């Protein structure tokens, strides 16, 4: 039994988060049309997918769906798998997807020769190649080990954002949500618990790369380098990246800390808007967790210990 009613904006990445067994997978499957809940009403824009009189079957909804396991078709090569959905939508060219996911070298491989991470990448490419209206992802990283997870996460972000496909991402991992989501919907015990505070994320651009690291500059930061960070290489020069700030890896202080192991120490201005505390860092707005904040307009220092990177593609390509 699911009790849910809301409206999800069709842009960017929306995460549905909550404890296991809370109904997230069921909700996703009902939205996609893989399961029929008799009382559900689903519509996208002006198109009605399901109401009391109509039920549009899943194959007519023009969606993409990435499951926890790749479920690649074993009788087709990786490349033929990717083309499967595209062919049925009349799409002949999907080079952008192949490039964004680095699938070029895998196209001729047979499915059983792929590693878990490669197979899931192919599955993502297959879903995106058909240019879906919405991409549903149901815990796509859950069956991968931490190294593969970290490897695949940036691919998901870049592919989805570059392709401008709105994504609905189910996960119970806070890191995945902080890394990827623009907004977060909570679901627990079969009922929606409402929109949560979106992850704190700063926009930055990659200004330099070498073979192991890259230097990113926070948008709006001065050229003197105060807003620069050095991170492990995960994006290309000129690419826009989102720096996700996990709540527990962020230190806010009234005085500027000295000699610390922080990745970066950023100046911020605290203000309140509609009763919610916000921190402005070089013009970028971060929603702070509810708490005892005093002194509107006071200067706070944000020390960042860990960053979850979200590559967003090069601006001219998007």
């Amino acid at each position, binding site marked *: 039994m699911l009790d849910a009613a809301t409206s999800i904006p069709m842009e960017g990445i929306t995460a549905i988060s909550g404890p296991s067994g809370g109904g997230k997978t069921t909700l996703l499957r009902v939205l996609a049309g893989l399961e029929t809940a008799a009382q559900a009403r689903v519509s996208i824009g002006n198109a009605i997918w399901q109401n009391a009189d109509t039920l549009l079957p899943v*194959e007519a909804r023009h969606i993409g769906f990435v*499951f926890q396991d790749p*479920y690649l078709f074993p*009788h087709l090569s990786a490349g033929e798998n990717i083309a499967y959905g595209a062919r049925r939508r009349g799409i002949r060219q999907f080079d952008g997807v192949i490039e964004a996911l680095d699938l070029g070298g895998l196209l001729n491989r047979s499915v059983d020769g792929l590693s878990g991470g490669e197979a899931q990448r192919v599955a993502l490419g297959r879903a995106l190649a058909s240019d879906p209206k919405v991409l549903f992802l149901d815990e796509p990283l859950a069956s991968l080990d931490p190294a593969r997870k970290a490897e695949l996460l940036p691919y998901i972000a870049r592919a989805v954002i570059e392709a401008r496909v709105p994504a609905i991402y189910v996960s119970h991992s806070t890191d995945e949500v902080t890394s990827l989501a623009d907004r977060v919907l909570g679901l627990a015990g079969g009922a929606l618990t409402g929109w949560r505070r979106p992850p704190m994320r700063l926009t930055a651009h990659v200004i330099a790369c070498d073979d192991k690291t890259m230097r990113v500059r926070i948008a709006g930061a001065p050229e003197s380098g105060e807003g620069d960070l050095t991170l492990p290489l995960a994006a290309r020069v000129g690419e826009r990246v989102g720096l996700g700030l996990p709540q527990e890896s962020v230190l806010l202080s009234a005085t500027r800390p000295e000699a610390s192991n922080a990745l970066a120490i950023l100046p911020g201005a605290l203000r309140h808007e509609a009763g919610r505390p916000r921190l402005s860092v070089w013009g970028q707005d971060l929603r702070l967790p509810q708490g005892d904040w005093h002194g509107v307009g006071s200067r706070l220092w944000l020390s960042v210990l860990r960053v979850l990177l979200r590559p967003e593609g090069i601006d001219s390509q998007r």
Partner: protein
Amino acid sequence: MTVWPAIWLTLQLALITTVLLMIIALPLGWWLARTTNPVRPVVEAITALPLVLPPTVLGFYLLILMSPDTPLGGLWVRVTGDTLAFSFAGLVVASLIYSLPFAVQPVQSAFMAVPRMSIETARTLGATPRDAFFSVALPLAKRGVLTGAVLSFAHTIGEFGVVLMVGGNIPGRTRVISIEIFTAVERLDYATAHALSLGLLCFSFVTLFLIYALGRRGAARLG
């Protein structure tokens, strides 16, 4: 050799039966593989009956069903002017029933091995259920379907009891190889009996060998 009509008749019977059986077995096997309808075990039991019933039981009931007094037999006489029993068409009907489990069971098993998620995934990619069947399920069930076809063919070639009862041993019309062997032995023509029996033995062996060789190749590819 006067046995060529029998050989030709047998091949015709087996080929027509196999083609018709696959047309029946594919949708039936697919349905049995995927349905949760409680009537499923009933259908499976009926399909499997020819495996356990003595051919004479089948033959007897078929004869009754085909007699001109019944709806089926009567309709046939009106449409073709000929009785269904003791005709080639009657043999085809009998073979369809008699070889049914040999077609349906391998096909059903093969379809049961096709992961449900593969079909679901195909549908999220824009395939209608029919499209998903032809583009995903059927290719993945290829070996089972082929096994069903080959087994039906071979089994129909070898049938004796039902064919004798329903066909009546009419030369050129319903005297197939197995019956030809029987009549050859009856008239002590062991040369003909030998030739035909050895032929059938070799044919059956080659058929089974092909099935097992196919199975081997599939397993080796996965390993």
